[in-house]
């Protein structure tokens, strides 16, 4: 069975500091990978998705970036965090032939102060 790991679970960072959130998937190969964010009182917003190593599509303009250095690893980064980056970040994967995210990770609660 497939499992998805995210770390850290919670993170408190000062404004202007860098960010690196990591997501890894087990039990599958060549998955589609996604980063979502849930801001307070809002739905889940797709930030990035990737259909393969080194292939990243960005959905919204922002100061965040994503990278996929390995098939089952997806990283969300920022050089300088903003207050508005606070939220609940979720990694997800899906089978390439299926149209939706099958499994979300446990999420990272990011608070920028």
């Amino acid at each position: 069975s497939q499992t998805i790991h995210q770390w850290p679970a919670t993170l408190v960072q000062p404004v202007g500091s860098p960010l690196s959130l990591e997501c890894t998937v087990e039990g599958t190969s060549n998955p589609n990978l996604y980063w979502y964010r849930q801001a307070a009182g809002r739905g889940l917003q797709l930030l990035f998705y990737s259909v393969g190593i080194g292939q990243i599509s960005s959905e919204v303009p922002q100061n965040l970036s994503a990278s996929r250095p390995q098939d089952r690893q997806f990283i969300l980064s920022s050089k300088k965090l903003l207050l508005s980056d606070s939220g609940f970040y979720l990694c997800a994967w899906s089978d390439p032939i299926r149209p939706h995210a099958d499994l979300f990770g446990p999420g990272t609660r990011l608070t920028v102060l």
Partner: protein
Amino acid sequence: DQQVKQNSPSLSVQEGRISILNCDYTNSMFDYFLWYKKYPAEGPTFLISISSIKDKNEDGRFTVFLNKSAKHLSLHIVPSQPGDSAVYFCAASVSRNQGGKLIFGQGTELSVKP
């Protein structure tokens, strides 16, 4: 531009009764719709889906109805149980070829009272 909307942020239902969660969308290109359930401090889990070629899909206590002309879908839970208390998100997909991107609604928090 909120393409998928869940206008009720919360819903309270008595155990054993029906829970009806609603979702509206604006993009007529959406061809696949899903419902996710989310407990606090956990990621969402897939619940049920429906393709635009259908108007109803049933899985146990959960049924999703799609009204394409009204651009509306709903999730019915019968009978409701206390363990169903969670936040429910509806989501829509434009195309299978776009990496499986989903557009989510804001969520409805369901509370089932014993």
